[in-house]
């Protein structure tokens, strides 16, 4: 207890600090690349600059949801059922929801510029919206309460169900769209002719957003661990109080 009071340490370590500095530096460089150095697109003009945050965002969201599923599967299949896997799943799910939201909003801004409309009923857009809602549900189930193990089991099963549901939704939405001629609006507009620097900028964006994701997920897992620990401690106090009742 004493050592803890001495210095407030937070969820960082030397390694995460290095990772954090790297992330910030690469984000700054990405902004330079995307907003200043890279050229305008032949068809889309300057609106292509939104791509450098839009595409990496959805990339991170996919990684995050993949990680949620993988950690949930590990949690359910591991013998000791360590709660760290549950927390990693939860942290990744939360970050995934944030980044899907970001990519939906930036995507619709980009769409307004290049297609003249905020939203088209394109298969990819529609199933991304479903992805967002599905994982909102996942986060809601994580907050249902009960013991940590109950939360872990329930949400792990739900995460695996979500992984099953997503391809089904995506496939059926694609079938649905294929019947409508207007579907070409979406694909026609996004044809970007990329030169070397644009390609590099996009690639650099993916890397720096991945660094960002790693940094976020590590910190979030740790703060979730602390939340669990504090709840356990609250339970200790409550057990003490409960025993007192009997003495009086």
């Amino acid at each position: 207890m004493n050592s803890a009071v001495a210095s407030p340490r937070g969820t960082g370590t030397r390694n995460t600090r290095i990772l954090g500095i790297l992330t910030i530096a690469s984000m700054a460089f990405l902004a330079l690349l995307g907003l200043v150095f890279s050229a305008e697109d032949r068809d889309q003009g300057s609106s292509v600059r939104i791509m450098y945050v839009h595409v990496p965002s959805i990339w991170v969201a996919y990684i995050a949801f993949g990680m949620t599923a993988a950690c949930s599967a590990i949690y359910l299949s591991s013998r000791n059922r360590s709660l760290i896997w549950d927390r990693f799943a939860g942290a990744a799910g939360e970050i995934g929801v944030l980044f899907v939201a970001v990519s939906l909003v930036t995507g619709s801004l980009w769409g307004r510029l290049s297609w003249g409309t905020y939203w088209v009923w394109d298969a990819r857009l529609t199933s991304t919206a479903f992805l967002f809602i599905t994982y909102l549900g996942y986060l809601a189930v994580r907050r249902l309460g009960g013991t940590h193990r109950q939360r872990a089991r329930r949400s792990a099963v739900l995460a695996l169900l979500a992984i099953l549901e997503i391809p089904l939704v995506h496939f059926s939405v694609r079938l649905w769209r294929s019947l409508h001629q207007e579907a070409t609006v979406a694909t026609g507009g996004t044809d970007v002719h990329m030169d070397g620097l644009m390609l590099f900028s996009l690639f650099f964006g993916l890397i720096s957003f991945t660094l960002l994701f790693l940094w976020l997920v590590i910190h979030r897992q740790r703060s979730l661990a602390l939340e669990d620990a504090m709840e356990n401690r609250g339970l200790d106090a409550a057990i003490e109080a409960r025993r007192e009742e009997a003495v009086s």
Partner: protein
Amino acid sequence: METVIELKGVVAVLGSFPALAGVSLSVQRGEILLLQGPNGAGKTSLLRVCAGLMPIERGTGSILGIDLATNRQDIRTRVGLLGHTNGLYLDLTVEQNIQFWASTVGASQEEVANAMSTMRVDGRLAKVKAGQLSAGQRRRTALASLIVRRAEIWLLDEPHAGLDAAGRDELDALLRNAVAAGATVVLASHESERAAGLATRTVTVDGGGAR
């Protein structure tokens, strides 16, 4: 004697409230154990833990030699719980309720008829919807569906509540018969005089612990 319930320092929580704050309890086969204690002492939770319904957060426990932490599902087939609620479907008649519970365990028609006559819910009452019964009649219906489940451990939460004098006598006789046939009974009751006459041992539950 064979130990059928063995709890060591069991903590069980409702949300974040420790309903059981470290209970240790040992029950032998053939006992009729009475749990006493004020409201909110943890009697109901203790029964639910023994039934494998509430997960245990800390401590260890086994019921009929089956580990509570890992195999709660296996325990449940071998114990019977009568909780605060009766576990009846209010839109089914008394007979339909008991038939349903019988069919989940594959009990015969004869067993159903016996259980219904033991708890006096046969005849005219059998065709009444559970939602229209009096509290005591519902209690008797719940006990009848408990009988057809042939439990090895009977966990009863206030079984006497709502029963009339005759019903209480029948319940006591029923429990004594069950014990004679090799079952074990744990009951929580405020009817301490009556229950004490029935019980072979009394344990006081208070502040989420047992003494």
